[in-house]
């Protein structure tokens, strides 16, 4: 059980204080060995690690993964019961059909937008949740909500909780990595991958294929020889200090953190070195695509796979950034010009993401990696008054997952005939993360941390595991 009644890290370190030599350094830093990690789960895990793909801005469910034929029939007519409904950015116009055809995909024949042909081919692997809901229709809070379960900032993200619960399985790389889009960071920025009130070590380390980890590289003004001499001297100082002050395991942990940093200096650039991949792999992802944004995202996808392969526990991969001066230009926020916006964004997402998933599968990584696809909220089935775009809609939208422990080809829940509101098996972000934690071997009600009067949880005081999408071996 993980809770404040349990032994804190400091106490744990105190326990081993006298016999420190026998303890693996990584363990001192909260990065347990695989067997130690398994002991920290509440029940046997199906997934060891998580890859979360995130489309900020609010991806329209009814133009991508949830087909609504009624919109064709009702196109141009008022939304029954909500004529001139006011949503986030103002008044809504009439219903607007999706500009794109939906194509039967996979053996299940799941209808997926023609804009996503490559992802469509993977429909049989995916478990769609078409009845997701959010508590807010505003970008910043919604992005933070999807990542942390709270609309206000300052709470730990799912990745931070996972790092806190399970630690690392890799002694040389970070436990939790966020890969921002080359266009920039998502709405509310670092609040999406912060540790909140958990210790800072659980925050994500941020880098992508274009820009590496901050401060990782030895500066040019320090030669390799000087670095070596520095470490030696530092070792001497710290050893002497630790000997003069026994019984302070934090001192030893800090010495270990320098050793991990040195290993990370070697491993992280190696992990990020995409030139080690074959030409065929590069083609699979489309890293040489003439569209520079698509190529950049493809490289981030490839980086994500290399991190997952190296046992990084939680990777969040963004496709799109924060809002810009122009709605819908840098992310999925298609207020005014849906068609132009999604014809720009969908190809960026489609082929590289599909390539990533196929690659994970062919390397056997999907057996113990859980892949999530999430966004802030969906969009209205109407057009926004005076525009050809759609406004924010937190009342019903689609997310999906696939991989370890997930039943493929399942569509769970649904919105009404127009896609306006979730009506069948209405789901919450708490349900979503209860399920994610469940697959990681964790009980979302037991994973707690005390802060300001409350044993906090990723799922607040809510959440049910969505058993319908969990794969239970017969």
């Amino acid at each position, binding site marked *: 059980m993980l809770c404040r009644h349990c032994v804190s890290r400091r106490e744990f370190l105190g326990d081993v204080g006298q016999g420190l030599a026998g303890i693996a350094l990584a363990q001192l830093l909260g990065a347990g060995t695989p067997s130690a990690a398994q002991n920290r789960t509440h029940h046997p895990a199906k997934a060891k690690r998580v890859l979360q793909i995130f489309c900020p801005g609010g991806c329209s469910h009814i133009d991508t993964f949830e087909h609504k034929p009624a919109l064709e029939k009702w196109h141009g007519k008022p939304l029954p019961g909500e004529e001139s409904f006011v949503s986030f950015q103002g008044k809504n116009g009439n219903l607007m059909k999706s500009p794109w055809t939906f194509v039967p995909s996979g053996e299940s024949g799941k209808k997926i937008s023609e804009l996503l042909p490559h992802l469509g081919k993977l429909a049989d692997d995916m478990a769609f949740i078409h009845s997701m809901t959010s508590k807010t*229709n505003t970008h910043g809070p919604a992005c933070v909500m999807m990542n942390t379960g709270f609309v206000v900032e300052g709470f730990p993200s799912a990745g931070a909780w996972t790092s806190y619960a399970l630690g690392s399985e890799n002694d040389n790389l970070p436990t939790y990595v966020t890969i921002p889009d080359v*266009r920039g960071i998502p709405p509310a920025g670092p609040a999406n991958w912060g540790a909140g009130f958990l210790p800072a070590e659980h925050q994500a380390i941020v880098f992508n294929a274009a820009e590496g980890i901050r401060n990782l590289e030895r500066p040019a003004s*320090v030669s390799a*020889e000087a670095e070596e001499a520095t470490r030696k001297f530092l070792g001497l100082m710290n050893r002497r200090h630790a000997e003069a002050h026994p019984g302070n395991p934090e001192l030893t942990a*800090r010495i270990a953190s320098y050793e991990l940093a040195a290993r990370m200096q070697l491993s992280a650039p190696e992990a990020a070195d995409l030139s080690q991949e074959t030409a065929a792999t590069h083609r699979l992802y489309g890293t040489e695509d003439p569209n520079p944004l698509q190529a950049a995202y493809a490289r981030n996808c490839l980086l994500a796979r290399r991190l997952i392969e190296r046992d990084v526990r939680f990777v969040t991969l963004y496709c799109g950034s924060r809002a810009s001066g*122009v709605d819908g230009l840098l992310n999925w926020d298609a207020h005014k010009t849906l068609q132009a916006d999604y014809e720009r964004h969908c190809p960026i997402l489609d082929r590289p993401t599909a390539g990533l998933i196929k690659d994970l599968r062919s390397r056997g990584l999907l057996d113990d990696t859980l892949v999530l696809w999430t966004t802030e909220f969906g969009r209205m089935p109407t057009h926004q008054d005076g525009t050809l775009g759609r406004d924010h809609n937190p009342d019903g939208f689609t997310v999906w997952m696939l991989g370890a422990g997930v039943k493929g080809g399942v569509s769970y829940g649904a919105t009404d005939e127009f896609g306006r509101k979730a009506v069948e098996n209405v789901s919450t972000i708490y349900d979503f993360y209860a399920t994610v934690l469940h697959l990681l071997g964790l009980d979302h009600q037991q994973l707690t941390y005390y802060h300001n009067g409350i044993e906090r949880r990723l799922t607040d005081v809510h959440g049910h595991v969505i058993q319908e999408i969990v794969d239970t071996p017969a």
Partner: protein
Amino acid sequence: MKSPSQALLVFVSMLTAATAGAQGPEEAETAALELIQNKCLVCHNSEARTSGLDLATLDGALAGGAHGPALVPGDADQSPLYGKIAAGEMPLGNPLPRKEHDIVRRWINAGAPWPRALTQGEKRSRDGPDWWSLQPLSESDPPALQNAPESWQSPIDRFIHAEMEQKGLAPSPPADRATLIRRASFDLTGLPPTPEEIDAFVNDPSENAYERLLDRLLASKHYGERWGRHWLDVVRFGESHGYEQNHLRNNAWPFRDYVIRSFNDDKPFDQMVLEHLAGDQVANGNPDVEVATAFLVAGPHDTVGIDNIEGQLQKRANDLNDIITATSGAFLGLTVHCARCHDHKFDPIQQADYYRMQSIFEGVHFDQRAVAKTEQIQKRERLIRPIEEALERTDKELQALSEQAEPLIEQQKPSIVARYRPPVDAKGTEEAFEPVEARFVRMRISGTYRGTPRLDELEVWTSGPKPRNAALASAGGKASAASTRKADDDPKAYSVDHVIDGDFAKRWISNDPDRGEVTVELARPETISRIFWSRDRLGGFQKTFLGGVPTEYVVETSLDGKSWRKAADTEDRLPYTEAEQDELILMTVLDADGRRRRQSLLQRKKKLQAELDAIPKLPTVYAGRFEQPEDPTRLFERGNPMNKGEAIAPGGLSTLENIFPRFELGFEAPEGERRLALARWITDDRNPLTPRVLANRVWHYHFGRGLAGTPSDFGYNGERPTHPELLDWLAQRVLTYGWRLKPLHKEIMMSAAYRQSSRYDIDAANIDREARYLWRFPPRRLEAEAIRDAILAVSGKLDPTMGGPGFRLYKYTVDNVATYYPRQEFDEATFRRSVYHQAARSVKVDLLGQYDCPDSALPAPKREVSTSPLQALSLLNNPFMLQQAVFFAERLSGEAREPQDQVHRAYRLAFGRAPTPEEQAAAVDLIGQQGLPIFCRAIFNANEFLYVM
């Protein structure tokens, strides 16, 4: 809905009362079992069986768990159940008061009668009004001691020593003076002592050397910077709005200065509370004090506008929740925010209490307001009043004039409109002209509708039977612009190339707010006869929403790019907006006299407006804007603002009603009075929470841990104090000292408990690993700010300038939303103390972010201390560190010639001691081979530099 919960409170209080007053064997049995039920079953119940132990039944206790049987009936000393409780190890993090140990002891020694299975229910795991922190301050005298060393005789030491004796612990010897001055300097000022200060103290033969050291440090201006920073954590002070846009608040810093000033002046804390909550009420017209209300709005606030009502109400509710959370946590140590949706699950706080507080803050809005001296306000008022009156008169005259002209307008409008070409259309406007041969076409924009000029396409059409758009890049066209806005994260986002790419979704944006110029160079000279431009070809925008539309421009052509001829302009077009069109028509229908009159009136208006603008505005501070609420506050059922329940009047919390009456104001009470009333209730001498919470905070920062381990939560979920009597004694001292902190600091720091060494003792550690009972001084790592400040102090570059706008460790850019780029170069403006950093929310700057600096989205009553490789990387490789290592090296070469002297000086500056011969040799060796800066970089990375012992 009130009665069941009240009944529950009564029930719980009866139970606990029985526990406290247990006398006879039966009462002892009941009390002991209830204690187990309430305190142990949370973990050791039949389901959870933590450590294999189930304390629901006698059998379970006898069978025991992973560590063997828990209970030996008749022998408390052999029963771990008692032993763990008596040692304060159980309940974990929540040790029981001594009198409850005795209840368990007597019960076990009486044979541990256990007639029934215990069940854990919700009602057992919460507290009533008799919870420890809700009692009046006790007046216990420090215990008399037999075995304490002579130096342990101060009241504080007697309390501490008594608990230690109980636990079988003994204090550590006093720390040496060098250690002590380093500890005290960091503690009170956040800076290391200089070698000279160390020498002076170490060699001071006088008996009161230490006391004088404390006096000096408490009088230092740096004291307020250090302890002010602590307080800014507690009140979640940040200097940006947070959320998606996260724009900076550039006028929030006066609050930071107020806090520092107040700590330095040793302003009574009760006064500070009044000022935080109602500075505008108690010090109106005194800006230095009035800015304290910035506390109310120091938290994050979403600045994105929401059009739907649910969203607006929810956002407002979240704002108020932030104020309630901050206020109840900072001053009362209560988690009132837990009662937003229902009565508090653990503490006696009703849902109505939450809404009583909401009602108090209902008039507070996240905004800036003018804060100025009374004379300043009056002076400005005197200056602007006549101008505003003149403006009003002018407007009336203008109005009368247009009303007179209305019949004429009606009559002539169609014919006037017919004289002009239609207004420009953002979806596409054509300018046709006589065919002309041209290689260059340019559009010079001198006026727009709403903001910076933008174009999504500029087409240049050839004349003749098969017209072509010769401007297209695909046709060999090239575009250039006088200026182009650049987005930091995507330099090509607004490139002028977008006007000739045939793609209407992308646009060029000028970098000049009022004008812009786009030139298209054709592949070869062509005969052209029209251009066609658009700002929103896709038609995604409503007209009034769409800004940046070019409305005044000239189109010119050229063959050589040097001499230009005009092809078209907007002179003969109707103006873009209806208001401008109306003005044109009005001016046309007026006779000469009327026109002159209108013109002169308009001119006068313009002049008056300019005069008004020329009068300096009052300074504004992000200290909240206050507005009398229109409607009574209503309780939100289940916390949902769309679900309004009963009306709730502003008032104090029912939580302390047993001790002293709560206040209640009328629904119409002026909003300022509401805040003032709450402040008075919080600082009422009968309110035990405020001084207790304050005393505990002070203790927390001195020892790294409060007597109660959760400084902003004195409720059931918080940790109970290790030394409740001492805590109350300290709280009494707060009142004795008239709420001044400096005497309290001194009293705590003069104690032997504070002055003892941090030496390690295995036996003591086995009993009390974290030294909660203070058998040694708990060593700890410096906080992020102290690390950075110490680096600057040691390198010799610390700029001690106090106050004023902060510096930034990031580059700040805004394009709708704010983006923060970490700086790579650091100039002297950034060498001030870290408390003056303009800390933007959720922006983790190097060093500060990695070393657990809170991001101020939520209150941070205590900081986490984490260890990660990123910390190592930032201290080793960040450009700031390399720069400071060079400065440190320069300083050393200036202050000592020989390497061994430089090493000596470096150790004294950084660690406050001389190097050992072995260290000296290694360091001289390193300097000889790699140079001084490399050595200095290593010093900054040493554990000894970052830890206070």
